[in-house]
């Protein structure tokens, strides 16, 4: 098949040619660059060193929350508003992969179909498993690649279940936590992690009779937090409808207000410094983990055998691979 040769030829294209394509706004280059990120391609460092200086200007927003609350629906409506302001919008949508097969069905696109043919909207789906440097790093690289391609607003969507998923959203300038009516128990469960990272709360499915009650419940939880730490601002709570778009303009305003506040107080700089630091650490950790896997494989099979037979303890075994030059 001649076509296969073409595909392979592309994988070998030079990093700088690909970076040039991305920066020129070529969609296929952008798509292929993101594939390199997903694969952990050997050209990725060279590619990214060319793209990185062109990032940092975009508005970045992370959306997280339990499955099915309406994150993608809200994002679809929000894209419309940003498009009306003539902003180019990139979306990185993360869906859970099967922990067993690593396969995934990525369904967030279904709700974004209205924007498929808008050339100033670029949507990329990602499975959550098996990324070098962790999920947050991989999705962030994808979003930054979109920034380098000239997108003004980058939206990240993740299901707020695992720690890695929450980290994806937290890397953004503004984090929106989406909840739905009757989610009282979910809120209790989320409190431990996700509640703290949210800058704006969105109670979606406002058409539901319990919507106001849920908003009140969330408010009371947030007020407790405020009493414990009076310096922390109380995040706004916005009621929305993902199906009609009601309330989404208010959500956009709340996001904008949060952004404005961050910029005014210097919080933006602190936040971005911290998140870049996390990025560096998680990428380095990912590299180290891969290296350790390889070293362990390189050791004679005897090492793990001795661990299993209680002749060598796991800490001593890890010391062995750590100290290898």
């Amino acid at each position, binding site marked *: 098949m001649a076509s296969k040769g073409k595909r392979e030829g592309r994988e070998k294209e030079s990093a700088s040619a690909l970076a040039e394509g991305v920066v020129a706004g070529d969609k296929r280059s952008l798509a292929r660059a993101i594939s390199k990120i997903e694969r952990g391609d050997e050209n990725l460092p060279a590619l990214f060193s060319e793209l990185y200086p062109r990032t940092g200007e975009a508005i970045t927003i992370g959306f997280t929350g339990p499955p099915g609350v309406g994150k993608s629906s809200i994002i679809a409506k929000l894209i419309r508003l940003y498009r009306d302001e003539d902003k180019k919008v990139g979306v990185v949508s993360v869906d859970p992969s099967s922990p067993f097969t690593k396969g995934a069905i990525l369904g967030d696109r*279904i709700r974004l179909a209205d924007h498929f043919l808008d050339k100033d909207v670029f949507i990329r789906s990602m499975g959550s498993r098996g990324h070098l440097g962790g999920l947050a790093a991989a999705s962030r690289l994808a979003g930054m690649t979109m920034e380098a391609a000239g997108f003004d607003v980058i939206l990240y969507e993740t299901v707020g279940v695992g720690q890695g998923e929450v980290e994806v959203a937290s890397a953004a300038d503004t984090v929106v936590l989406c909840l739905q009516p009757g989610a009282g128990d979910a809120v209790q469960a989320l409190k431990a992690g996700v509640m703290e990272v949210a800058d704006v709360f969105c109670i979606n499915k406002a058409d539901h009779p319990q919507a106001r009650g849920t908003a009140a419940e969330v408010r009371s939880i947030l007020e407790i937090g405020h009493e414990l730490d009076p310096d922390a601002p109380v995040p706004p709570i916005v009621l929305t409808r993902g199906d009609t778009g009601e309330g989404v303009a208010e959500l956009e305003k709340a996001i904008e207000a949060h952004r404005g506040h961050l910029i005014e107080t210097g919080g933006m700089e602190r936040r971005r410094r911290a998140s870049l630091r996390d990025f560096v650490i998680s990428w380095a950790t990912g590299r180290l983990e891969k290296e350790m896997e390889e070293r362990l494989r390189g050791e004679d099979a005897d090492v793990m055998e001795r661990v299993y037979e209680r002749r060598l303890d796991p800490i001593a075994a890890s010391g062995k691979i750590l100290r290898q030059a």
Partner: protein
Amino acid sequence: MAKVGLDGHDRGAKIIARALRDAGMEVIYTGLHQTPEQVVEATIQEDADAIGVSILSGAHMTLLPRIVDLLKENDAEDVLVFCGGTIPKEDIPKLKEAGVGEVFTPGTPTKKAVEYLRRAVPSAS
């Protein structure tokens, strides 16, 4: 995995998507009622290796060649197109002639589709 045109039969598409996922592949499901233009644009943005189209409406002879043509126009003819659904036997050779890699009719075991894709797309582990 795409559903094009006015066809609302989505069981086949969902079953195949599930089978491919269970085989360790990443499947992007576009949802119902897509145009060939939307499907091709999504394919490009996602840098997909293959497009699986499910058609039970009888419109396969117009929709599938359109997808293949659009891929060519976008310099993406390296993307494999394969399909399934209620497709009469006599149309199968014509579809293959038009550039469709394989056609799976009702009752095909899902395993067949998985095996085919693994063979046709080397990166599909």
